[in-house]
């Protein structure tokens, strides 16, 4: 991620890590999640689902900061996030 200025607490703070869950068959391929993910975690899959849409694939899972914008934007309730608790433990 590119910062416009280096945050003062950049050494102490770490962005949380999230897990991304996609229901492949529920997606209608609108692409909102892919276009607006601030960390470019998602990409269009090559596969079609049964409805004939290309759902997102989680191409860069390690990049997800659990901001949950994809979850909020998805009109189909097909994508959501959970906080990676293990990661939280490890950074404490």
């Amino acid at each position: 991620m590119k910062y416009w200025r280096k945050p003062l607490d950049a050494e102490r703070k770490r962005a949380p890590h999230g897990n991304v869950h996609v229901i492949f068959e529920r997606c209608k391929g609108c692409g909102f999640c892919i276009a607006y993910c601030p960390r470019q975690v998602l990409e269009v899959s090559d596969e079609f689902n049964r409805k004939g849409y290309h759902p997102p694939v989680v191409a860069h899972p390690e990049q997800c900061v659990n901001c949950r914008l994809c979850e909020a934007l998805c009109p189909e309730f097909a994508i959501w996030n959970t906080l990676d608790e293990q990661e939280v433990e490890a950074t404490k």
Partner: protein
Amino acid sequence: MQEFELRASDFGLVLMNPNQLIVGRGTAEHHPMEDFLRMDRMPHIWCSTCGLGTCLTAFIAAVEESTIPREDIVVVSGIGCTGRAAGYLKFDSFHTTHGRAIPYATGLKVANPRLKVCLISGDGDLVSIGGNHLIHAARRNMDMTVICVNNFNYAMTGGQAAPSTPQGAFATTTPYGAFERPFNIPFLVDSCGATYVARWTALHVRQLTISIKEAMLHRGFSFIEVISPCPTVYARRNRLGSGLDLMKFYHDHSITKNFASTRECDIKFQQDIIVGKFVQKDEPTYLDAMDAQMKKTLGAKFVPYVGPMDPGADSGRTKSDART
């Protein structure tokens, strides 16, 4: 003027506060919003890249963040693509006749003032056939939250022009371009007396969620216009591309101006859209005004109505402060 350009994908960081919960916590198997939806009715009928589903996620998130007890919330919709919202939300919800969502909601509120009455309906439903109800609910400062999804046309019936269709836009009933002057909806409700008025687009999910939450916690007539993409009829007829293209248009052409004069919030075809919270003020609601007048005239004889009796209580009027 701008120091740096935001890429579309940077918008997420602007929108989201990562520390803020959206809706509870899901698990790897369970989408957290499913608890608020009638999953037996999914998938919904809304087209791919339609913004209506996103409006629902904002509503659900707002309900969760408001911490208003779920059993106190009712959702009312009229007819239209947007009107399907009430049927998909797992609340006490009412899918009413075309244009009559506000009278229905008014009845609910007056009969049981404890309820948080929320409406989700379309521009055609609320401003066209239901326009008269809208102006009077605003005038009365009727305590309810109206979410008006404006897709600039009657989408469900095939894309006829609505009172919100911008001049120059094509619709099935305006094959040579719309020429009527459209309503500036925030100005309309503001001038009629609405005490909370905001406008966002379907892309502004975070701001929209905050506004819906504020509106639900507001006492009085609160109104939120949501500009939302209708790729299937409106965008196709006007060659505007997909819903994602329209989201990108909103990204590039929304100007946030909180407390802007609603008079200046006209929407012109494919030009900048002013968004923000425009009005927020405290004024007596319909029920406050009624009680005050009755007390003045009847004095001690007047017993304010506080809602249906609580079956669990011995003396009926238990939830006496429920209106606040």
